């Protein structure tokens, strides 16, 4: 599998490690009244889609960047690769 890195171009998947669903970026607010439930959901509840899914990958044997990879679990096609930093900033995080 080849992951088309947004800065470095196509790189072999062997250079990357997989973390999990991209929703891990959205860490809940620990001060919220519903924090316990929010963290339970954040930590344990995952969809298991047959189709498009967004995942976090780490370019360990490369530039050490975190990526959000949009991948289809039925066809293995990778449709989009973004820097996780850009995704987080776009979602309103400060860094």
């Amino acid at each position, binding site marked *: 599998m080849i992951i088309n890195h947004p*800065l*470095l171009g196509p*790189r*072999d998947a*062997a*250079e990357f490690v997989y973390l999990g669903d991209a929703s891990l970026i959205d860490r809940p607010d620990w001060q919220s009244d519903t924090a316990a439930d929010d963290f339970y959901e954040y930590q344990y509840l995952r969809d298991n889609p047959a189709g498009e899914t967004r995942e976090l990958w780490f370019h360990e*044997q*490369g*530039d*050490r*960047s975190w990526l959000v990879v949009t991948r289809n679990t039925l066809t293995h096609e990778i449709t989009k690769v973004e*820097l996780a*930093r850009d995704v987080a900033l776009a979602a309103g995080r400060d*860094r």
Partner: protein
Amino acid sequence: MPDLTLTASPPLDGYHKQFGDTALTEIGDQALVSIAVPLGGADALDSAMTGAYGTTFPAPGSTALSKDGSVRFLGLQPDQCFALFELAGNDPVEAIANVLGDTGYYTDQSDSWAMLRLSGPLAVSALERICPLGLAPAAFPQGSVARTAMEHLGVIILCENEDSYVLMSARSSAPSFLHAVETSVENVS
């Protein structure tokens, strides 16, 4: 107290071997210092580098040479680069920090990496068996740098010219890395 002087020993004992016109040589006289950008400090570091070295912070995959040619900056990842220069004295960080001040975060990496230079007509054919990246001049021209893995070992590869490459790998696994490169050169000799 007796005056003791410690002698540094290179990770690969100063290895050098010729394979016809192709040479595999350990580089032992270079210092390596990582420069990291403080949060929100990219512009300050960039202008400090431009003022002192006449070059801007390199993008990942590219290198920049200081205007006097003494320091090569390797762009390895967003917000971090490595400075490669001739080792003088025992404190390479000081050499960079004296110039750039507190505009960046510096870490001495010199002793953590084993460096090899593979140069000669067999360099590309030896590397293409172990390096997952395409090394054709169009894709990886002179002055390119990349971090990748060869034989499962993390490697920084720097293209000096079409048949000369600098390879850096972790000191702790340096003999295994040398074995991988040496075997590959032998296999194409």
